[in-house]
Each structure stands twice: as C-alpha cells, then as structure tokens.
C-alpha cells in the first residue's frame, strides 16, 4: 500500500527502536544503582529506586571509601580499591609476560619436546579454575599462601589463554623477519626484546585490557583465598555488601550501591575508552 521510500523509513524507525530498547536495558539497571546511591537510606528503604536523584552522593562516597565494617575495620572502600588494582594489574602483567615468553619458546625455537610442551600447556585451556577450586585451595593453603597477593594472583595465571593468543599471533608474523634478524646478527634475546615485543604492541594492549577486566572481576577465587578483611577486593567485598543489606537496622543502601559502582567503574571505563583494542583482542583470540 505505502510508497517504497516511506516503508524504508519505517523499518529504520523499527531498527532504532529495538536498539534504543536494548541500550536502555543495559543502562537503566546501573543508573538505578547510581540513583539509590544519591538518596538517603531512609528514602530508599521506604520507596526503593525512583527517577529523582538526591544530593547524598558525596556523603555516601565518604562512607563507601573510608568506612569499614567487620571486626578489623580494614575493609574500607579505599583498601579494597587498592587490592583490586593489585589483582587487576598483577594478573594482567603476569599473564602477558609469562604467556609471551612461553609462546616465544614454542614458536621460534626448534624444541625436541615442543609438541609435549604444547599439549601440557594447552590442556589448561580445557579446565577453568572453578572446576578444581577445592584442591587448588588446599594447595595454596599448604604453601602458606592464603591471604597473600601471590596466592590470589598466581593460581589464576595457571591457564594458557594468553600463551595461546600470542602463539597464534607470532605464527602470523612473516618468517622472513627472523631470517633477516639472524642475518643481521641478532640473537634470540635481542630479537625478542627489540623486534617481537615492539611489533606486538597492539596485541599486548588488547590482551592487557581483557586480562585486567578478567582479573579485576574475579569473585570465587578471592572469596575463598582471602579471609583477612584487609585483603578483600572490591568485587569480593560485594558479598559483604549484600549481607549488610540483610541487617536488622536501617540497611545502608547508599553506601553499598556506591561501592558496587566503584567496583565496576575502572573496568567499564577501560572497556569504553579502549574499545577498538578491546574488541580486536576479544574477537581475534578465538582464531
């Protein structure tokens, strides 16, 4: 019935509507957390989330960052932020350094046991930490690494995702490059540091973003391994947040929601600002 030109416009309206609804579904829940963090706890307890923002953000921020609960008084937001940073950076850097080294050895050297090393390393891709969580806990306990940063970070590194990623990437680099470097007299270490690492800059950045977000967002492992409140990360601290909401007194919605927002802010900002690297790293890691 309608004119073709008009029909096309209607389909565009439909497309945009679907996308807008989708975007709202992604955004509104988090806006709701912000709104609840901006009103008084009494208001939230009575009426729940609403459309009007209050002026309590600074007050709640103060509480979230500097007030601690629990016995030791050590799990302030600031302390948890610090621990999260260590976990995020430690995990990302550790994983990339170890992964690049292993991938370099596998791709660029003639090793007798290369195939064996490859399988030993890549079997780890098959079983996530969650599957072997209890025995891992026992071993960390035996090694006396409970409530330490090493105990938090190193077991998480024991899977070969970064190694696999760099292996794929190194193999896509033309062979002529090694030949040329060797003719020019570059040894294996010089080739690695002066040629391969600079060449992989974009890949390292992409991997760093993915690994940082992954490390930062870890929940189960930190929950088991850190019992000392001074060692809590923000994401692990969320468990405490929900449990205080169950308290008999006035639940501290403002403080707890603001803590949840602080917990998601750094990884969200990184993903948004370094979007193209992040998408590249994510979609190219599976090939």
């Amino acid at each position, binding site marked *: 019935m309608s004119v073709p030109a008009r029909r096309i416009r209607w389909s565009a309206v439909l497309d945009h509507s679907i996308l807008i609804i989708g975007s709202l579904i992604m955004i509104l829940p988090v806006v709701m957390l912000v709104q609840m963090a901006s009103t008084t706890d009494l208001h939230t307890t009575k009426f729940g989330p609403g459309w009007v923002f209050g002026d309590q953000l600074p007050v709640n921020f103060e509480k979230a960052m500097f007030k601690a609960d629990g016995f030791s008084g050590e799990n302030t937001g600031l302390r948890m932020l610090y621990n999260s940073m260590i976990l995020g950076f430690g995990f990302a850097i550790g994983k990339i350094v170890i992964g690049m*080294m292993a991938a370099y050895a596998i791709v660029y050297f003639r090793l007798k046991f290369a195939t064996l090393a490859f399988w030993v390393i890549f079997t780890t891709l098959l079983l996530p930490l969650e599957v072997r969580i209890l025995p891992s806990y026992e071993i960390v306990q035996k090694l006396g690494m409970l409530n330490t940063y090493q105990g938090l970070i190193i077991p998480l590194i024991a899977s070969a995702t970064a190694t696999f990623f760099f292996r794929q990437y190194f193999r896509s680099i033309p062979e002529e490059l090694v030949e040329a470097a060797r003719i020019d007299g570059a040894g294996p270490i010089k080739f690695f540091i002066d040629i391969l690492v600079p060449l992989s800059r974009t890949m390292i950045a992409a991997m760093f973003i993915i690994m940082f977000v992954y490390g930062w967002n870890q929940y189960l492992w930190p929950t088991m391994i850190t019992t000392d409140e001074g060692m809590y990360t923000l994401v692990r601290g969320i468990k405490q947040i929900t449990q205080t909401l169950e308290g008999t007194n006035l639940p501290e919605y403002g403080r707890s929601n603001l803590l949840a927002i602080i917990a998601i802010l750094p990884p969200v900002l990184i993903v948004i600002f370094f979007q193209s690297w992040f998408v590249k790293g994510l979609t190219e890691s599976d090939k």
Partner: protein
Amino acid sequence: MKRAGFSDRWLPVLFLLPQLTIIFIFFYWPAAHALRSSFFLQDPFGFGETFVGMKNYTMLLDSASYMRAAWFTVIFTSLVTFLSLSIALLLAVKADKVIRGAKTYRTLLMWVYAVAPPVAGVIGLVLFDQSWGPLRDFVALFGWDFRLGVNYFDTAFTLVVMSVWKQLPVNFIFFLSGLQSIPRSVREAALIDNRSAAGRFWDVTFPLLAPTGFFLLIINITYSLFDTFGIFDTQFKGEPGNNPMTLVYKVYLDGFRGNDLGGSSAQSVILMVLVLALTIFQFRMVERRIHYT
C-alpha cells in the same frame, strides 16, 4: 609449523619454565589431587582417609539434591544460552544495519561486558526486591506474586534474567564483528537475488554467521556453568537454602561449606569430564570449520 628458528638448547627451556612451573603447581597438582580424593572418604576432623572406590560417585548419582542441581544446570544453561544468543543476534543485526548512531549503539550495548557478575546479582536483588523492586512491581500488574529467594521458580527466573543481561555484550560483540566481516560483494549479490530482508537474513547472513554462532555456543555454555557463580552467590546472600543451584555452586557448597571433600572432589571430576568432552567436541567442529572456509 615454523621451520625457521633459533637453535639454542637451554634458552627456550628458560622461557618456558615460569609457565610450566605455575601450571604444574596450580593446575596438574590440584587436578590430580581432586582425582585422587574422589576415591577416598576423608575424616571430617582431618584424621586420615579411607579408600572407598567409586562410592563417592555412586552416592552422587543417588543423591536427590545432586540430580536436582544437575537438571537445574541443564535447564539454566540452555535457557541462558538460547536467550542471550538470540537477543544479541537481533541487536547485532540491527546495529550492523543502521547508519546513524552506529558507534554509540555499539558502545552502549557492549560496556556491560566489564560489569562483574556479583554486581549483576546485586542488581537482580534490587530489581526484584520484595517490597519495592521495579520489576517485581511490573510483574505484579499481571498478578504474579514474585517472591525472590522464597519461591524456587521466581529465584530461578531472576538468575536467568541477570545471567542473560550479563552475557548479552559478549555475544553482541562477536556477532557484530562476524556480520561486519561478511564481504560487501556477498551482501550486494544477496540484495539483487533476494528482495525480502528476512529472506536475505535466513538464506545468506545466518549461514555465514554459523561458525561464530557455534563458537559462541560453547562460550555461553561455559559461561553459564562457571562465570555465573557470582550472580548466584550474591542472590543467595550466603544462605543457599533450598534455592536453585548449578553444579559448580554445589561443588563449592559441599566442599567448602559442608566439608565433604571426597564428594566435592567427585563432583569436580564429573565437571572436568563434562568440560573436556565439550572442548573436544568444539575442537572437532573448529577443524571442520577450517575445511569449509
């Protein structure tokens, strides 16, 4: 394989050493330990252990609560995978089609990737709060008396909704990048051959996206099994009670809370076999995919 390379003997070993050490201590050792413990019954007070053979396994299969968790895991995984894949596909197709605002939509639809699962759990608690949860109020309009944490079905519903919400961005990113890698020539040829947009989608786009979809299927299954732990744990507020739970949550609960090491190890081993089977299946399909393209 690369033929050119350095021929040093000890340098590569040195390069491999950190990775191998960590893997042996924190991967193979715990995995072997789990396998071994699954055949033993541990004394709860730490005084020795007795070899019981397959008893830990047979007890699991006889346990009503384990089978209940197993069934819930199957249903939960299928629902989360199906819903998050299909909604993400719809959004990706639309985001690939629009011209204006494409970049903004892309950002808005993917940033939730960085939100930690337990925060998604907290959001679920608020959305379906007993007294003023906005979504609880919404479903109440249809006469649904939603009781999060009390009613088994309602709790499961919240878990599925929040797990899908959290997983949409990953699927969206992969589908969009899959769509964008379809060559322009193919699209133009399809445009000439097939006037209807729906027909073009099912005949051309969908088959071309199948490899991405298959890869995502595995990703989504592992996500539903493992990464949703944080969503479950925050929803339960430390009191799982009679709530629906996945097999991974049960491993944690029985081993860490219930101190049943043998049983929990047997559960770990069952999960390992499951994931192993899934991955081998995936590798096989990936091989086939390489032959196709």
